[in-house]
């Protein structure tokens, strides 16, 4: 089976300054790569590079066999703290429907199948409960569920999730874990940046980042006390 994502000697960063160098990994269908690190460690920059929003500085990377940012309808990206303007008069279902725009392009009309996928995505995240409410009236957690539903509505083969559990309570975090498991079960490769060590429990690969790769491997081999101390400066209770 061909890899969903492959990176060799990859360096990511802004301008001419790399934030992380020497990234080597390969992600097969259904696999989960969890990126863990402090703020500014390079997690979001790596995700943006995979999404095609930031150019790779060195090395090679391909997503679904092509350059990042070229397979829009097959790659879903959830940015960190998606901006939602206070004045944005959009209902939850309209925001989720935007997840289908990559498939619809500029002019194609939404079909029954598109509406069904939007509805199903809202049901899966629980956003269906407030689908007619304006996004601006919702709590941070509800907004995050809405944005998650939007990413799911893309029906992508690769999901890039930047701190999807931010702003969610314990129940919400469990729900995200379940959604990720469901997506992996249908062959979706997932890359997820997080601060929560527990998010890495079911990962195939964990990468500890601190402006360099501190450790990489299965959760058991990467999340050692020594590696965590080096990454965070102290050992986190796991």
């Amino acid at each position, binding site marked *: 089976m061909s890899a969903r994502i492959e990176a060799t000697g990859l360096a990511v960063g802004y301008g001419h300054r790399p934030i992380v160098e020497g990234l080597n990994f390969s992600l097969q269908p259904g696999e989960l790569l969890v990126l863990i690190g402090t703020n500014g460690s390079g997690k979001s920059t790596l995700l943006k590079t995979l999404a095609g929003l930031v150019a790779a500085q060195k090395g090679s990377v391909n997503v679904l066999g092509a350059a990042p940012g070229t397979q*829009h309808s097959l790659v879903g990206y959830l*940015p960190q703290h998606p901006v939602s303007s206070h004045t*944005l008069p959009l209902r939850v279902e309209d925001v989720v429907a935007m997840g289908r*725009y990559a498939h619809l392009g*500029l002019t194609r009309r939404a079909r029954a199948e598109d509406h069904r996928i939007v509805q199903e995505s809202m049901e899966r995240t629980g956003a269906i409960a407030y689908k007619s409410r304006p996004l601006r009236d919702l709590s941070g957690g509800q907004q995050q*569920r809405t944005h998650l539903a939007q990413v799911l509505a893309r029906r992508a083969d690769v999901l890039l999730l930047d701190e999807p559990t931010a702003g969610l309570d314990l129940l919400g975090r469990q729900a995200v874990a379940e959604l990720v498991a469901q997506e992996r079960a249908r062959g979706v490769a997932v890359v997820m940046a997080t601060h929560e060590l527990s998010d890495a429990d079911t990962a195939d690969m964990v990468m500890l980042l601190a402006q360099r790769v501190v450790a990489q491997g299965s959760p058991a081999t990467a999340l050692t006390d020594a590696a965590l101390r080096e990454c965070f400066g102290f050992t986190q209770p796991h």
Partner: protein
Amino acid sequence: MAHFLFGPFLDNEFLRQSLYAGILVSAICAVAGTFVVLRGLAFAGDALAHGVVPGVAAAFLFGFSGVLGAAIGAGVMMSGVSVVTRRYRLSGDTAIGLLFVGMLALGVIIQSRSRSFAGDLTNILFGEVLGVSNSDLVWQFIALVAVCAIAWFCRRPFLLLSVDDGLTETSGFSVKKYHNIMLAMVALTVVASFQTVGTLLVLGLLIAPAATGALFARRIGTMMVVAAVVGIFSTYVGLLVSYHANVAAGASIVFCSVLEFTACAVVVEVQRWQAHRKDIHHDHDQPHMHGHVHVS
């Protein structure tokens, strides 16, 4: 009373023409202004409005079409902002600010060569709503159709741009391309509107009605409709006040639209306060319930 409200428009053709122009401009501004408010382009819109000044001033001085002059001014302004932002890595705000004052100053310099400096400059800045011709109305109608067509055709990338640039790009729409198309739409709106309300006040009709729409609307289409209604009502009331009180028409229209926003904002605030009070009473009357959403 009926004569007080409608007489001026029935008795005076120039006022009827002004009302028609105001309705067209309000509709154009409602569509473009909605995206200006959602994307946060108020400063860029203001700069574009002032960027047309040297073009219009040159048109006055050398005797060619003011609309053509305004279009050239808007084009120079947009290109200048794009070049300064890209080549010198300055923020959009700084680039817009630089071009904004530069173009306004150039406009005043060109206009100062005119014999009727003060009068012409006043017309450019505050418009000539009471001097609208049939050809102006035709041109504004064409501009309305063009702006509606752009907004409809680009509705998806424009909506995405209102939420997040990253989301726009990863959905397959170029942020740079559609941001520039949006700016071009705003520029067209300014060019079509400046003769009616002036370059200084066109921003008022771009922002205030759309901001009023944003207070109530839950959908973009509704926001545009509310903005158009607010703009048209402001035009009517502004012209009426101008006629009876003998005050500047363009400024009266824009001032009315800002007053309407203020009144609506107060209504929304009172509604929120009442809802908040209702929630507090509800919490006191009923035992607290912890519901949660099922996620499969």
